[in-house]
């Protein structure tokens, strides 16, 4: 007997778009909600950054007092990491992963929606500290005993703790959804080693989220108990251990930064082959490098704590340097993908190539920081701020914009305007480097981070001024982007199913896809199913049967027959 399909109601019915979006369990709508919500928080945290840079442009406290300044950099970091960069990549994952797998939706659609709604509400809870005597002000890392109730009085820090616990729980649920979807809902023929690299990076990222975030939750709860119920976890005056907080926080915090970067690497790995008209070089190496980075990320957390004196330096330094190897493999594979390709520098491609160059710089400063002698000199200086912005911003945010320009046509049926996109890119790229490159020198010459003011000193002043100019340039670069998005919604050029001649399944359906994603799927015998459907083997494909006959001997025989790999 045919499966009963579940439909909201029989017959046609009217429903307002507000209720539609509030009650949706469709991964595509939820993905868009994630992305829009994340960009709103991006702009809010960006404004906080402008406050910071304005204050630091020249010596002397101009218009922020120290406590407000502390709240600004704390909220900037917290919002950017937890409410922008992780959720926006999760949003792209939500939209694209089921499509790339040939699935009709995520494994647990209602829990998917639940995961989303905690974000705007949890984020507002964190921000609401401003209404109640001041937001959290101890840095996004929340070190004890500064965050204990002796020093951080007021409800802002409690709101920060609770908000992050809620947002963290939501992301754990989301990660379970992704893993279950990837293991159980792939289309026939899509073995694990035929999945797009983006899906692989989401898989490893979701595993990291699922295993690391609960540790943060435990730490946050412990901190809440210390602050509110007289606990003694971290308060040295009653026998607690402040370094314990750092261990718990960074045991989460280091996998967290790989959570932030891996999906962006996945996006770049999708974009480069399409706009180089060549397959990704070294697919399997990519997969193993991603898994390797995921595994190694658990072994390096104490490199954030070298200067505490409580860390076995040789081990953590060695393991940290080791991560450069799988990362380097990816770098060379990306370059090899582009080598001798027919390069097309669309805006998405510009951001992808920008990612490679900027993340390279961030990676190099990271390897420098892996060395304790260097780290002892620059810990808690602007050198670290430079490093983290080159990897977070030069890496992940470039990846986010690349993903936006690449997948916007699929999501909304229209291509973003290319010339405007290029204006956005160049303003963004130049502004970014102006803002953050000087920080390397500032750190090396001793400027500490998280200070609201500094002594007058010609070298520092000019570098800070240049950095502030760069920050405002980044802000200005957002304008052509927003104009582009709005104008494209109003009157953009229609995109069609496959505007970029992509390789993966999301381009095998309409733009935007119907609610159930696919009317029919192309045959899947490689990691580029659409490429083979359109191009065959050097000649145009005829009927799917012909294609299979030719391709069978190309694949390892065992792969062709297998459907999804069962979990047990």
């Amino acid at each position, binding site marked *: 007997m045919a499966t009963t399909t579940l439909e909201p109601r029989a017959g046609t019915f009217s429903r307002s778009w507000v209720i539609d979006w509030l009650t949706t369990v469709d991964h595509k709508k939820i993905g868009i909600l994630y992305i829009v919500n994340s960009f709103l928080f991006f702009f809010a945290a960006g404004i906080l950054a402008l406050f910071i840079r304005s204050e630091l442009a020249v010596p002397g406290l101009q218009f922020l007092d120290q406590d407000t300044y502390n709240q600004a950099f704390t909220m900037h970091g917290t919002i950017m990491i937890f409410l922008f960069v992780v959720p926006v990549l999760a949003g792209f994952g939500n939209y694209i992963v089921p499509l790339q797998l*040939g*699935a*009709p939706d995520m*494994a*647990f659609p209602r829990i998917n929606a639940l995961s989303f709604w905690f974000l705007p509400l949890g984020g507002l809870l964190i921000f609401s500290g401003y209404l109640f005597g001041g937001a959290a002000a101890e840095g996004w890392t929340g070190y004890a005993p500064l965050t204990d109730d002796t020093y951080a009085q007021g409800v802002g820090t409690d709101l920060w703790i609770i908000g992050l616990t809620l947002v963290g729980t939501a992301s*754990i649920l989301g*990660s*379970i*959804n992704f*893993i*279950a979807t990837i*293991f*159980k*809902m*792939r*289309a*026939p023929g899509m073995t694990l080693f035929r999945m797009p690299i983006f899906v692989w990076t989401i898989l490893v990222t979701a595993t990291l989220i*699922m*295993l*690391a*975030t*609960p*540790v*943060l*939750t*435990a*730490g946050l*709860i*412990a901190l809440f*108990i*210390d602050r509110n*119920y*007289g*606990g*003694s*976890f971290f308060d040295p005056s*009653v*026998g*607690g*251990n402040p370094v*314990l907080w750092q*261990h*718990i926080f960074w*045991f989460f915090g280091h996998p967290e930064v790989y959570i932030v970067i891996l999906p962006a690497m996945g996006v770049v790995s999708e974009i480069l082959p399409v706009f180089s008209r060549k397959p990704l070089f070294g697919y399997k190496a990519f997969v193993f490098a991603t898994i390797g980075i995921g595994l190694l990320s658990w072994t390096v957390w104490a490199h954030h704590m070298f200067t505490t004196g409580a860390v076995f330096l040789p081990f953590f330094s060695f393991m940290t340097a080791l991560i450069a190897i799988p990362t380097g493999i990816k770098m060379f594979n990306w370059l090899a993908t582009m080598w001798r390709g027919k390069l097309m520098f669309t805006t998405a491609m510009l951001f992808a190539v920008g990612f490679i160059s900027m993340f390279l710089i961030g990676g190099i400063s990271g390897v420098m920081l892996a060395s304790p002698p260097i780290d002892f000199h620059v810990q808690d200086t602007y050198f670290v701020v430079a490093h983290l912005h080159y990897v977070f911003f030069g890496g992940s945010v470039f990846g986010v914009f690349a993903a936006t320009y690449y997948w916007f046509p699929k999501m909304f049926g229209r291509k973003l305007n290319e010339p405007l996109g290029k204006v956005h890119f160049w303003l963004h790229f130049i502004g970014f480097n102006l803002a953050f490159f000087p920080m390397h020198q500032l750190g090396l010459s001793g400027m500490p981070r998280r200070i609201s003011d500094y002594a007058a000193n010609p070298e520092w002043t000019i570098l800070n001024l240049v950095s502030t100019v760069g920050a405002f340039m980044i802000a200005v670069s957002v304008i052509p982007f927003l104009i582009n998005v709005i104008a494209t919604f109003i009157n953009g050029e229609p995109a069609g199913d496959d505007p970029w001649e992509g390789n993966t399944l999301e381009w095998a359906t309409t733009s935007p896809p119907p609610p159930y994603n696919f*009317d*029919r*799927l192309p*045959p899947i015998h490689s990691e580029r199913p659409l490429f083979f459907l359109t191009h065959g083997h050097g000649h145009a494909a005829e*009927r*799917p*049967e012909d294609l*299979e006959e030719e391709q*069978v001997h190309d694949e390892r025989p065992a792969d*062709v*027959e297998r*459907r*999804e790999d*069962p*979990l*047990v």
Partner: protein
Amino acid sequence: MTTHAEATAREEGKFTPQDHQSGMPTALVGMLLFIASEVMFFGGLFATYFNARATTSGAWGPPEGAHELDIALAGVLTAILVASSFTMQFGVWAIRRGDTGKLKLWTAITLGLGVLFLAGQLYDYSQLGFGVGDGVFGTVFYTLTGFHGAHVFGGAVGLTIVLARAMRGQFSARNHVAVEAVSMYWHFVDVVWIAVFSTIYLLG
């Protein structure tokens, strides 16, 4: 299904994904992953316990003037919870055979044992004479056992839902993923207790 037949089916527009799920049901995969995340949560709490124990100078245990920990009672609680894991598994085996009656019986017994465990835990708390705010030991003791108890409570809620659905005849041999999922969670809660008991009461 051969490649050729698959291709034909696909060409005709028939969808072949979830037609027959191979391997573990998706909901069970979800529960397993959730349990993994919970293991990491307790890992964080255990880390605080071990770190506090290692960095505390002086004796490690309840503060001055409070009672020593009641190992005997904790042992009884352990026995109760381990027994409840067995009864839960009996229930799972029953429904795999299609025996709804026995499922209801064993689920009810498991729920009863779980509630007994919680009552015993609360009684223990009332006898201890120190609280979460009484020094490092008090803090980590109550946090670790308290969150475990909260998870037992969550499991009891799940058992209640399973019992209610079983009483409405919603489970069959072919179709009882919720029972399997709740039983997995219940075994996890039991294993965590064994770790808590060994760490706090046996290791000391």
